[in-house]
């Protein structure tokens, strides 16, 4: 055991070093390229949170998967429902060594999906010309939604913008012109007070805070006042900076004036659907639920997100992106084909008309073969479409504590708006705590 090893000669050292360098340099070249076509049967998993529900989202998803498999007989897609609330199934399946190939990832989970769930940058697995061909005709700022650290990890799938729904009948009853919905927060306050005074109904509600609200709507409100909740390089939280504090203090004022109802997301949605609230700021994804409540009861209309005076509205998206997690080139090809199908003109037509989200392809909006006829019959979606041109990304918080960071921020925001906390002090305190959770 004590045998002396032969001393390393200069020649051995040089050969070894060269070999190591050669192997290191050739690593990228060794990564297997994605095949151009699917030549043999392949099965991929598609983790989809819409499939975990029984609503229109699940029906449209099942329909799209079935259409894709019919058009691509060599690809079998196994739809796996999962709860986007905690992604525990994805974590458990990855720990169990089960294949996770394509995922419908909530935008706020994108950083975690890249660093922990192995989401692949499209630039690294898909030929550039193929990507360019598929991206042609998409809103350029829509493509930026899934970009993280300069690479495209996700392609916007079921996404939306904040829409101000309003009850036109309540507006009429309050002597407000339903053809001129409030465009600024000041106008929202005035209209809300008038609705309350003349109809006795609640003025305004929003899905900004409360369980399950995430931070997407807050980000848009803060951004519209010239602030942001996190720096562009995503290293520093900024939700206690003056612009953000001012935006949140405006919401507090709205609440204290009696206009902004302190209700969680479900209650606010139910209140609006039942015709008891004048205005409601929320994702367009819930318009189906609102229409169901409003049918034969009152006239439901929609408008764009309110602005801070003359400052431009800077809404960001809600919803999800498609991310490829497969490491096997054949599965990557199959996942890419499914991703292309779901984000095609036909895919977005189904997603928009049957679920209530947005198309990333403007050309299909007026095309009678796609959404042309449907949009004419459903004018509620128009403000949502108008905001596509100014859409900005929903910034995901970084690191493994990203959910705790969001929760710390949102708890403070809620405390400020509906409680007695001083906006600047409470937000600064929360920001300091949340900053400690940053990677």
């Amino acid at each position, binding site marked *: 055991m004590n045998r002396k090893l032969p001393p390393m000669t200069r020649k051995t050292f040089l050969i070894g070093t060269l070999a190591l360098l050669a192997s290191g340099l050739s690593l990228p070249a060794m990564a297997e390229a994605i095949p151009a076509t699917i030549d043999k049967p392949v099965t991929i998993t598609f983790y989809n949170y819409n499939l975990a529900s*029984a609503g229109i989202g699940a029906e449209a998803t099942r329909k799209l998967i079935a259409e894709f498999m019919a058009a691509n007989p060599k690809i079998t897609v196994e739809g796996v429902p999962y709860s986007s609330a905690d992604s525990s199934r994805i974590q458990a399946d990855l720990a169990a060594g089960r294949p996770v190939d394509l995922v419908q990832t909530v935008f706020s989970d994108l950083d975690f999906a890249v660093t922990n769930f192995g989401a692949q940058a499209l630039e690294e697995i898909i030929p550039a010309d193929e990507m360019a061909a598929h991206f042609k005709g998409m809103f350029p700022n829509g493509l930026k939604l899934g970009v993280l650290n300069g690479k495209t990890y996700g392609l916007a799938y079921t996404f939306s913008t904040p829409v101000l729904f309003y009850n036109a009948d309540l507006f009429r009853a309050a002597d407000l012109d339903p053809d001129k919905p409030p465009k600024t927060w000041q106008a929202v306050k005035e209209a809300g007070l008038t609705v309350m005074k003349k109809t006795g109904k609640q003025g305004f509600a929003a899905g900004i805070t409360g369980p399950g609200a995430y931070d997407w709507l807050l980000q848009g409100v803060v951004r519209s006042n010239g602030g942001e909740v996190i720096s562009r390089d995503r290293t520093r939280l900024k939700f206690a900076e003056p612009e953000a504090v001012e935006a949140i203090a405006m919401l507090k004022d709205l609440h204290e004036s009696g206009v902004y109802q302190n209700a969680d997301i479900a209650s606010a949605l139910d209140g609006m659907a039942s015709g008891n609230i004048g205005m409601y700021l929320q994702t367009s994804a819930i318009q189906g639920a609102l229409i169901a*409540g409003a049918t*034969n009861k009152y006239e439901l209309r929609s408008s764009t997100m309110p602005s801070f005076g003359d400052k431009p509205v800077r809404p960001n998206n809600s919803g999800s992106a498609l991310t490829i997690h497969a490491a096997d080139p054949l599965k990557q090809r199959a996942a890419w084909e499914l991703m292309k199908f779901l984000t095609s003109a036909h895919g977005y037509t189904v997603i928009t008309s049957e679920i209530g989200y947005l198309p990333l392809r403007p050309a299909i909006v007026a095309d009678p073969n796609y959404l042309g006829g449907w949009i004419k019959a459903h004018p509620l979606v128009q403000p949502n479409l108008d905001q596509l041109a100014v859409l900005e990304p929903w910034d995901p918080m970084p690191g493994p504590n990203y959910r705790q960071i969001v929760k710390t921020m949102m708890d403070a925001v809620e405390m400020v708006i509906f409680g007695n906390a001083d906006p600047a002090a409470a937000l600064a305190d929360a920001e300091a705590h949340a900053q400690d959770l940053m990677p």
Partner: protein
Amino acid sequence: MTTDVVRAERVLTKPQVHTRPQPAAKPRPRARTRSRLDGAAGHLVMVLLSIVCLFPVYWMVVTSLRPANATFETSIWPTSTSLDNYVYALQAIPILRMLGNTLLIASVVTVIQLFTGLLAAYAFARWRFRGDKLVYSLVALTWLVPFQVVMIPNYLLIAKMGLLDSVTALILPHFASALAILLLAQSMRSFPREVIEAARMDGARSWRILWEVMMPNLRGTIASLAILIFISTWNEYFWPLLLSRTPANSVVQIGIQMFMTTEGTAWGPLMAASTMASLPILFIYVVLQRQVIQSFMKSGIR
């Protein structure tokens, strides 16, 4: 106390009632009125509490019968009724299959947990062995560990066994229950030793003593425990949420949750599904009302 003494006491006490002076009987009508008022107040409280308890159930049924645009109406009696929500719920999810799965899982888990609980409890109650107190304490400690903590390791094990998305996998982690062992062990410890010794003298060994002597006498405890296990398994949510991939292999609690979507909550179908899901449990309450109340009183409200 002998029979003669009891008889003597009765003889002594009886005349006292009859020879009570008349003035003492004067407050009787007032007392009777007060007693009646007390009774009426008690009943009023109970009626109010019953309304508080029953109203959500009533509202669930009424909401399930309202059409979509009347879901949020606040009238006590629905202005229009429709079975559309039931039709939709039955079409959107395989609710009958899910109810069948839930019933099967709850029944099998109840039987298995009672069986393993009886065996373990007998061992703890009747035998002294090295480390018995330690093992008993460890079993008690597992009761304090939430299922969510062991959920992922259980999932990995089930995945290795190739049982993901199966009804079997929903039963497997529930083979033993600390509650069942502790509750039964306590009951068995208070079981009269003389009876067991008599059985032993008659030649019965542990197996026969357990099944033929102890079990029939513990029927009340076992029934209470069975109800608790059944209801707790019926309401199981997290494990099926993680494990089940297809509605057909899942349970009704997951089915109900499926109507809460990112596109809003479909209250009508949700209430229809909830009404259908609560029927078996309501049936158990109606049929075994006394046992259910006793089970909660015996084990504390879990």
